[in-house]
């Protein structure tokens, strides 16, 4: 069957089961858009910026587990999507991005809107392809989806020159692919798994440390079985939230820089760390030389480069988390003897003591301003029965959301962990909403972060993506201000945003709804009002501006050296703001 490159593209996407793509046209991809326009199977969501398209594809992928797809044009279209590709690469999100390219005869000619898409994306994709012959297009697309979704997932870019999209070629869609340089290991070594089982049975103070890999390999059930069978406490990374129920009695919550006291103490004093699909990121380990000093380490990961990259591992197991854990569970089920709960009692007594010593806590503001933690806590309680999908931007609000929003199910948490991309949350929420039109999708954002992608309000309105955005508005880059409080003697260099836009009017200007929740007594009613609105909503929530996020392990500190609240010598607000505004909460809020 002879088809044009554009028709091959659309047919191939259908064979891959793609139902939605996030796209923004331009000169060299017009033919592809023209073919997309004449079919009904694939929904094309027109975004207002290519970064938005990339993050929406990520949100779609994280919520569904399928590859998220975006289509952008050459030159600036490509450079704009780079941030989203880098984000997806860091967080192992399966995204397949298609970029237009100038005609093959013009490549390297500094043609209009030309960029070296392959060179630009090489360090931030798992793999990339330049299609130089229409005969190769179908095979390339098949390989792109295969690479993006298998092994440790990641973004793949396919660069399609304009002439390739116009030329005709024979269409054959391969049913399978084999790439000789790419053979992920799925089954862990049985011998190592046996060693791991022995180590678990021998250990007195074990801890499960699970990461995003648990979600990608759909291993939540296996983690739960392992934890419950052996009565081992579970620490989650930021990326793993939802991979184990946050309200489960064995959950210690998130660990790391802003993790709970008990989660970090448990790591530090454990004698066996069972790391599953996690990569010992510096935000988790703190000071590497003092990380888990007494512990043996078992590390299960599909990516061999993650193992022994940052810390020494005693029992490395390369393999898919789900397969390795179910094998491990099989061995343990046959060998576990006695009452595990009873055997682990001394460890749990210690854990419970830590839990009660320093639970997550905040105080209400005496002047009646809303505390950000309170808003998130109430949002959690008022929506938990609806199993919402929650996205966040990056900063203080992200950490509070991670601490207080206890997610129960996998694929309900969309956040930018590795790259820390402000502006991720809103478009990611829209991508998830496009996949699940009937579910409640919340976006918890900061006033700094949200301003990096507000143009997508137009997309949300036109495409009817009714995400509910809560802007935790402190008129600061809050996390920057917190570090300036703690490490720069309160000099707020370029962290004060001053006059932030009126987010209610901004939403209304785009045709969305805007709600302001300004009074601590109206938080519940305000949240209910937002939830009752059919379309997309921006809820502007002015909060107490100087709240800092604790616990906190200062960068370079060890895991047991947590700051649990503002140090006594921290006087805030401090002095006069560089803009001349007295840095007093009341003045700034009413400025």
């Amino acid at each position: 069957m002879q088809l044009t490159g554009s028709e091959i593209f659309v047919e191939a996407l259908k064979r891959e089961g793609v139902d939605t793509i996030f796209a923004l046209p331009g000169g060299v991809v017009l033919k592809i858009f023209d073919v997309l326009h004449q079919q009904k199977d694939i929904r094309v969501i027109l975004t207002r910026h290519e970064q938005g398209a990339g993050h929406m594809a990520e949100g779609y992928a994280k919520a569904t587990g399928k590859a998220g797809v975006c289509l952008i044009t050459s030159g600036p279209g490509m450079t704009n999507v780079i941030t989203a590709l880098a984000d997806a690469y860091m967080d192992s999100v399966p995204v397949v991005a298609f970029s237009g390219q100038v005609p093959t005869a013009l490549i390297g000619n500094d043609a209009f809107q030309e960029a070296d898409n392959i060179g630009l994306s090489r360090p931030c994709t798992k793999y990339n392809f330049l299609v130089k012959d229409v005969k190769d297009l179908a095979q390339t697309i098949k390989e792109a989806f295969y690479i993006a979704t298998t092994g440790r997932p990641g973004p793949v870019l396919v660069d399609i020159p304009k002439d390739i999209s116009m030329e005709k070629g024979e269409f054959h869609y391969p049913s399978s692919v084999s790439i000789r340089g790419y053979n992920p290991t799925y089954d862990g070594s049985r011998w190592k798994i046996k060693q791991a089982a022995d180590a678990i049975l021998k250990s007195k103070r074990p801890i499960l440390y699970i990461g995003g890999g648990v979600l990608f390999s759909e291993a939540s059930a296996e983690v739960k079985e392992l934890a419950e069978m052996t009565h081992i406490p579970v620490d989650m990374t930021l990326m793993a939230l939802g991979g184990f129920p946050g309200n489960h009695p064995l959950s210690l919550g998130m660990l790391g820089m802003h993790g709970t006291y008990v989660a970090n103490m448990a790591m530090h004093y454990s004698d066996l760390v069972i790391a599953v699909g996690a990569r010992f990121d510096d935000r988790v380990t703190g000071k590497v030389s003092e990380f888990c000093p007494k512990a043996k380490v078992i590390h299960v990961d599909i990516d061999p480069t993650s193992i022994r990259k940052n810390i020494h591992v005693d029992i490395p197991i390369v393999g898919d988390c789900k397969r390795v854990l179910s094998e491990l569970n099989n061995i343990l089920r046959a060998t576990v003897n006695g009452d595990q709960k009873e055997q682990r009692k001394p460890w749990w007594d210690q854990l419970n003591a830590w839990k009660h010593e320093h639970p997550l806590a905040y105080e209400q503001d005496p002047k009646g301003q809303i505390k950000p933690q309170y808003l998130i806590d109430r949002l959690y309680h008022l929506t938990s029965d609806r199993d919402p999908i929650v996205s966040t931007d990056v900063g203080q609000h992200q950490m509070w959301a991670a601490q207080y929003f206890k997610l129960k199910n996998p694929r309900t948490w969309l956040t930018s962990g590795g790259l820390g991309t402000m502006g991720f949350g809103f478009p990611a929420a829209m991508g998830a909403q496009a996949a699940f039109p009937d579910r409640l999708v919340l976006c918890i954002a900061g006033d700094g972060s949200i301003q990096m992608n507000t143009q997508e309000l137009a997309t949300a309105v036109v495409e009817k993506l009714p995400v509910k955005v809560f802007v935790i508005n402190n008129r600061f880059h809050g996390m920057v201000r917190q570090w300036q409080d703690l490490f720069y003697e309160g000099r707020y260099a370029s962290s004060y945003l001053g006059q932030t836009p009126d987010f209610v009017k901004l939403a209304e200007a785009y045709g969305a709804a805007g709600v302001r929740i300004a009074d601590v007594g109206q938080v519940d009613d305000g949240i209910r009002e937002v939830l009752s609105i059919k379309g997309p909503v921006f809820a502007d929530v002015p909060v107490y501006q100087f709240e800092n996020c604790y616990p906190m392990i200062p960068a370079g500190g060890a895991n047991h050296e947590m700051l649990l609240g503002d140090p006594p010598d921290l006087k805030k607000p401090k002095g006069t703001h560089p803009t001349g505004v007295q840095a007093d909460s009341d003045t700034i809020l009413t400025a």
Partner: protein
Amino acid sequence: MEHILSLTLENKFGALSRVAGLFSGRGFNIESLSVAPTLDPSVSMMTIVTNGDERIIEQIMKQLNKVIDIIKVVDISECDFVERETALIKVHTRPEDRAEALRIADIFRANVVDSSPTSYTIEVTGDVRKVQAIINLLQPLGIKELVRTGRIAMGREPIRPAQAQSRPLAKAN
């Protein structure tokens, strides 16, 4: 410590820059690199000489294995191996030095591949110490230009006792 890595990789555009980008992006050092197609034109062999402690080399090996265009990675320096490098050395020669230059070339079994009234271009092949030794000897005469190929290396074939040769060779490597 120095390591010689032998890579089998797809002979595709972009494959070399994936390897180079991996090293530069992670701050690993490339001492030398040489690459050319093999008998199978779809596959290239690349020899990389690099430095690093055990942990860095382990990471380099793992990261190289992760590159999709790379089919196989071997740390040649972990086994018995032969290595060769070729250098072209253009030596400035005053009339009274010309015989000396030829003598040095002769000692190292090097060839003169180009000659002018004031220079010789000498081709030398050998392991890295030999190439360095002739460079050191020629330097006092005045080296005008120097080009080195970078090292290539290959593992030595294990030698078995003669009577063992009739056995199946399934476990030869």
